[in-house]
């Protein structure tokens, strides 16, 4: 059951990721990317990472993709305005990416993974357990992340607010 679900989600996410890259219309790309994120949330669920699945749907499908859609609609992008890469560059990029994939798969399929942990703890991905670890062992990175968010917010507001002529 879990096995067939894993393979179904894997092939769906690979197919949808390909569609993101190869779709002509940027709006279609964004919609395919949202579906890709949902399949990855499904992967988190079968990995017993329930909190991550929830956060992934809320942050990616809820916040980031809405931002992408807003910007695409604000700039009025569609298939006609889409810049086309030359055929040679497309070919070279695909070959380079394919070579990277072959190398990664060849390297990691030869690697000997450590054996899995014996006792299976399905509670590990729950918010209670993760919150305890986050606020004890990882409190310093957590605070740094909050500062990062503050800086990103200020930067985004300053960048988006500036008048076009004053910028140059």
């Amino acid at each position, binding site marked *: 059951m*879990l096995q067939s679900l894993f393979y179904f989600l894997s092939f769906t996410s690979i197919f949808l990721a390909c569609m993101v890259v190869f779709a002509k219309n940027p709006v279609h790309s964004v919609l395919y990317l949202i579906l890709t994120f949902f399949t*990855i949330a499904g992967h988190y669920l079968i990995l*017993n990472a329930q909190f*991550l699945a929830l956060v992934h749907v809320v942050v990616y499908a809820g916040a980031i993709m809405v931002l992408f859609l807003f910007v695409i609609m604000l700039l009025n992008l569609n298939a006609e305005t889409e810049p086309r890469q030359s055929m040679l560059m497309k070919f070279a990029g695909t070959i380079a990416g394919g070579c990277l994939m072959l190398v990664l798969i060849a390297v990691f399929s030869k690697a000997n993974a450590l054996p899995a942990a014996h006792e299976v703890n399905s509670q590990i991905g729950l918010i209670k357990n*993760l919150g305890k670890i986050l606020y004890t062992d990882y409190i310093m990175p957590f605070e740094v992340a909050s500062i990062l968010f503050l800086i990103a917010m200020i930067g985004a507001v300053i960048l988006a607010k500036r008048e076009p002529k004053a910028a140059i």
Partner: protein
Amino acid sequence: MNSIFQTVPIQHYIILSAILFSIGVIGVLTRRNAIIIFMSVEIMLNSVNLLLAAFSTYHNDAAGQIFVFFIMAVAAAEVAVGLAIIVMIYRNIHTIDINELNKLKG
């Protein structure tokens, strides 16, 4: 208790993540629209997140899931600033074709 790793080997997760990462790389290399390039970067980040979560479950260690959490936070900040920059570029040169962004070229 049943775990996914009793039926699916960890290698399959590694291969899935490698394929998704390569699709992201191909997207960055073959597209000229800056927003599509951003989306390809998101695919690459997500493949890494998936592998971190898989190994976290595999070794029964929650630290991997905390790392995924931090990567999501950084990705959200990156997207906010990046899209603000893209809007700024569009206001100035009225296109987001990355081949037109050659003002810094000597």
